[in-house]
């Protein structure tokens, strides 16, 4: 059934996979990105374009999984996986997550302190 979503431009070289039609217009979970792996593997093409033209949003987790998936194909397969037609929000998320992979979490976050409350005192203080 998934083959309906492939548009093979050149049977042996390149295929186009419409991500929104196959999954959803908002990509949230890691699982759903991993499910794309099977669709990519189903294609005979050497190069697969993941077409994000109808995708409105991608979560940070899904973006991270997508970057890892592309990396995995790049290292362990002769298939090339491209992300094409992504809107500016999706592109930005992919860029932020990719950049973040080489930047450690800040010490400000790691050493953050908290007020301590009971739930009753918190309810009273918030009014």
């Amino acid at each position: 059934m998934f083959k309906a979503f492939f548009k093979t431009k050149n049977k042996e070289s390149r295929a186009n996979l419409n991500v929104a039609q196959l999954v959803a217009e908002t990509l949230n979970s890691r699982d759903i990105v991993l499910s794309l792996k099977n669709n990519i593997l189903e294609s005979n093409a050497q190069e697969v374009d993941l077409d994000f033209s109808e995708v409105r949003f991608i979560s940070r987790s899904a973006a991270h999984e997508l970057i890892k998936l592309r990396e995995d194909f790049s290292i362990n397969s002769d298939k090339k996986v491209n992300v094409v037609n992504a809107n500016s929000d999706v592109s930005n998320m992919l860029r932020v997550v990719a950049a973040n992979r080489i930047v450690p979490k800040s010490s400000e976050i790691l050493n953050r302190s908290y007020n301590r409350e009971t739930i009753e005192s918190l309810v009273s203080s918030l009014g």
Partner: protein
Amino acid sequence: MKTVIVKNPSRESLPSQALSFLKALQGLDTAEKVTFNLDEVSWCCPMLILPLAAYILETGSDSVVTAKKTTSYLNAIKFPKGVNSVSSLEQQMQKNKSFVPISVLLRNAGADRERLEQMFGDFVLGQLGSIEGTSNVIYYPIGELVGNIFEHSKKEQGYIFGQYYPSKGYFDICIVDRGRGLSGAYKDEKGLSFTDEQAITEVMKGNSTKSDIERGYGVRTSKRVVCEGLKGSFMLISGKSALYCDKDMKDAIVDLGSLGWQGVVIGYRIPIPKNPIDITPYLE
């Protein structure tokens, strides 16, 4: 079967809603079957009603709930069973465009689960308007926090529910699981023994319950998007501890004493966005 009386929350805040359901469940065994009496409850906010729905469904408790003041609302949101497919959600939303029913998200539903989340996000966005950047800040916490349910809980289902209060000017969202909780996830996945409070602070540091050091951003960045980006409030309950933050940046670890929840409850409140919002600074 024991009948549990649910008290009306004394205030509107998220902690007050939480206190109401936590007190109702106080002293019950994890899987004890009960009947809930909501006759005293005037407003069934998500942070109060969704944990009760999850409790009823996961324990097989009697779903015959008495609720003098809120019966028609509870019927409209399909309490407690909710809906678990795109087709049933579409059907319910056509019947009543003001409410989105309780959604039961199934781990293995694949694209159907993804579309349920999308429809829920679309509903929230439809209520809160279309100011530039709003869609990102609406979809982001939904996606990350629901994803987290399935990452840490090991349960096959999770729950999400939301309600817009136009006269109050905010939208409440609640996400629930009845899994092993955050401390249980650290114990099982990494062999680390944390109290519930320690587990929550580790999550907020971005230390994932998974071994992948590149993970662990979802909850903390979602909290930042809600509290800093949207000027809202955010509460996370796991076991006998909780975290509460609001727009004034008052971050508090909350000792629940003899109260508690098996699993995780996350509630957040979003005021209607008035200005364009850029999500990028909160993604870290």
